[in-house]
């Protein structure tokens, strides 16, 4: 590591620092995005399915390769099964913040979270 430090020039450090800050800011911005309200499934501009995030459901999405199973529960969405070879979409885990996405590229499924969850959307009724 010390050798690496000696080999780097001031210019290197500047470039690395700038890129690092850009990435860091991006990460922070994503982590602080508001909790989403709904999800939209679509490919390009065509929307094939939408749902509210607070409704529990499991839905099958059709794609060129087959059926990708999407599950919504606890205000988050995740892919349960998909016919793609590498199952990356499943490994993307659960998403709930606005702007997040799940994508199965081979099966052409793109799930994105939009909107801002309103306060109290978890409750059907709130009484005082």
């Amino acid at each position, binding site marked *: 590591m010390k050798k*690496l430090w000696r*080999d*780097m*020039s*001031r*210019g*290197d450090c500047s*470039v*690395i620092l700038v*890129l*690092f800050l*850009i*990435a*860091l*800011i*991006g*990460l922070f*911005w*994503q982590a602080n995005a508001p909790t989403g309200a709904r999800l939209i499934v*679509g*490919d*390009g*501009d065509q929307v094939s399915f939408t749902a509210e995030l607070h409704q529990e459901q499991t839905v099958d999405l059709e794609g060129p390769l087959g059926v990708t199973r999407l599950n919504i529960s606890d205000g988050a969405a995740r892919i349960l099964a998909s016919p793609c070879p*590498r199952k*990356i979409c499943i*490994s993307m885990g659960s998403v709930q913040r606005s*702007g*997040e*996405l799940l*994508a199965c*590229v081979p099966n052409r499924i*793109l799930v*994105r979270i939009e909107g801002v969850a309103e306060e109290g959307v978890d409750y059907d009724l709130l009484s005082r």
Partner: protein
Amino acid sequence: MTCSAAKEQQLEQARRHVFLALLIAVAISIHTVESLLPTPLPWLRLGLANSVAVVALYLYGPRAAWSVNLARVGLGALLLGRLFSPGFWLALAGCLVATSLMVGLHRRFPDWLTPIGVSVAGAAGHAFGQLLAARLLLVSHDAIWQVLPALLMFSLGAGIVTGWVALRVLREIRRHPLFRQLSKAEADDQTGEQALQ
């Protein structure tokens, strides 16, 4: 027996051709092996073949770097059976952005940056270019940019590693008498600097 300057030039040209071919071969080999290694995500690799292009850039100039990188993407894809596949277009786009960035930065700041900085810029450019191609060809929605911050972080690390490799290789290579830098690009640079002074 006399050795004229012209002969030396010819020899250097021939040497340049041969070594460029060798560099391209090395880059393609590295690229192929890297592509065959298992990765958690596809297309997420160290990009070690890019360090060969950085070496070529520093030794022989921008056109050499372009040759190495374009050949690496094209022939590498051909050998792996991925020519004109989606992954190929992503790699090509990333390579175009990366190489332009590296060449431009090296030309503009030849002393301020080391191969490490150039390589980091290349890695970041590659990530950006790939995402741009993915946005245009595969995903058709701006949501793809969500992966940019994480990908950028990764490419920073990868760029530092490959840049350091390029730096060490350059250091060792330059010691060899065959690389006494009589190449045309260096000569042009030197005359250019003298003209400015």
